[in-house]
């Protein structure tokens, strides 16, 4: 009976396997293959007649590395700013706001998430342009003498990426904080912990998985982003994604572009693994530092109430 029930279910995954192998695994493998080739003459895009690692050497030149560090800086700073902005907001929605308003507020956070990101970025372009309303407003108030010159700078790109990825940080933080029930915080307070202590020893450690998920959800796509930089950063393209795109769209050197893409993916994977290892180590160290040895407590006399940790 069970066998009869299960056999067809396994086969149900077959279309997904075929589809993903044909249009995800195979294309990515093809890019990997192209990265060992070369650009044959002026009009070809790729050739694998001669295989070499030369494209990787070519990809890792000074311009690329400078762009790489710039991308990493924007991504790390962007993730950090998103966390600093999103965490208090998520805490506010999950803890302070009355239950019946929470759904509405989360829905409001989802609206920008689901607006086409090009359109959101365009909105910033209008707002920040030298003849835009922010600029003229600041000048009318006498806060600035000359038109605003934010557009097409690194600051504008940073603002744009923080804006674009903020909802991806808010939602996992909110989901995690929403689960840390009020009774745990009350228990912490009843046991004599102050509000700061409750926040750092109870609420934040419980929300840690959500915070980690948020950082991952922001950092990974941010590293590969390039449209935000194209729209707000102008001609001075300084994200790796733009370099890859230009090799495919303008330079028509697919071999070099593929090598850059492989380097980008490897770099993202390594960064995420290193960050995960560091986060785990820190968590273990913190837990060890805070550990309360129960046998010692049990053998001691009953501690005075509200006396903190014995």
């Amino acid at each position, binding site marked *: *009976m069970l066998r*009869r*029930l299960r056999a067809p*279910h*396994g086969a*149900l*995954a077959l*279309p*997904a*396997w075929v*589809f*993903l192998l044909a249009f*995800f695994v*195979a294309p990515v493998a093809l*890019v990997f293959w192209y990265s060992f080739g070369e650009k044959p003459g002026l009009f070809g895009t790729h050739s694998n007649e001669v295989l070499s690692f030369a494209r990787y050497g070519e990809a890792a030149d000074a311009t690329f590395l400078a762009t790489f560090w710039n991308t990493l800086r924007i991504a790390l700073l962007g993730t950090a700013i998103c966390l600093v902005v*999103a965490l*208090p*907001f998520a805490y*506010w*929605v999950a803890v*302070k706001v009355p*239950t019946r308003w929470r*759904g509405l*507020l989360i*829905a*409001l*956070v*989802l*609206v920008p*998430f*689901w*607006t*086409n*990101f090009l359109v*959101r970025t*365009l*909105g910033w*372009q*209008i*707002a920040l*342009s030298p*003849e835009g309303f922010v600029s003229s407003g600041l000048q009318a108030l006498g806060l600035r003498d000359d038109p605003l010159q934010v557009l097409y700078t690194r600051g504008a790109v940073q603002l744009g990426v923080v804006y674009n990825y*903020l*909802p*991806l940080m808010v*939602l996992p933080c909110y989901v995690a904080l929403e689960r840390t*029930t009020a009774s745990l915080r009350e228990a912490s307070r009843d046991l004599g912990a102050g*509000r700061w202590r409750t926040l750092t020893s109870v609420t934040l450690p419980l929300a840690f998985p959500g915070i980690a998920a948020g950082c991952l959800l922001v950092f990974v*796509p941010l*590293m*590969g982003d390039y*449209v935000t930089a*194209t729209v707000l950063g102008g001609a001075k393209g300084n994200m790796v994604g733009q370099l*890859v*795109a230009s090799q495919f769209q303008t330079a028509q050197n697919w071999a070099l572009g*593929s090598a850059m*893409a492989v380097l*980008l*993916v490897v770099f*993202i994977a390594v960064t995420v693994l290193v960050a995960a290892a560091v986060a785990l180590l820190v968590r273990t160290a913190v837990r060890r530092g805070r550990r309360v040895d129960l046998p010692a407590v049990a053998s001691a006399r009953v501690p005075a109430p509200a006396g903190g940790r014995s």
Partner: protein
Amino acid sequence: MTALDDRPGTRRAAPAPARRRRSTSSALLGIWGALVLVFLFLPIAVIVVYSFNTGRLLTSWQGFGFSSYAAGLDRPVIRGAIATSVKAAVGAALLSAVIGSLAGLALARRGGRWAGLLTLLLGLTLVTPEIVDAISLLGWFVSLDSDAGLPLFGNGLVRLVIAHSVLSTAVVTFIVRARVSGMDASLEEAAADLYATPWARFRDITLPLAAPGVLAGGLMAFTLSLDNTIVASFVQLPGGTPWPVYVLSALRAALRPEIAAVSTLMLVLTLVSLAVVALVLRRSGDSATDVARTLTGGG
């Protein structure tokens, strides 16, 4: 969006021992929350407001009117781009709904080695940078079209539907898996005991129970496809430019109010489909948090 209200009575308000200090921190958090919401809605409000600009240039405000809507919907290029986008989105929604729902059912009902590997592969499609998907699919479609001699992959719409489905199959799979693993397997077993054929069992029991997940997943795939810019800009073919790619190319020329007008219309289309998703999920018993998690891509 009132459908997103949380279930009543899941939590009671915490007592306030030190009321004054509490209220200051609450007030500060409240101010911060309001500021974040203003920040989140500023550029969207700007686009919606500027879509009513009657001037010739988007960035300089002339006056209020609907001329940009009329002008935008009047231009064949823009109408063509919207048509391409909607066709590709419907195709991608159908394709990924079929593939993703079947995979979701399989993953929910059967563990084993292959299930873990498939989950990993689907997870990878979600975290791969879009630029990598874009260039690999471009190379692959070109090879299939010219080297392998399959003219099907020289069709721009086919390319868009496949490329967008690669991005959204995982979302549909995870939504359907979450729905089906929450439901009772005994109904299917009962049907099997009553000599229902596998097909009849699937059609009469499994599919109706999974339907809200399939519908929500399909609509998510629709909106994902409607919004996709990066992959679409690589795999598209001349004459079949979808709307977001048209906006991207228009950025290099002077921006006109028509862009804002049509973008506002597309935003309304996206929000209506998402409201339907939220409604479907709420009707079938998800909490607001579950709905929010689904709407950010499975999880």
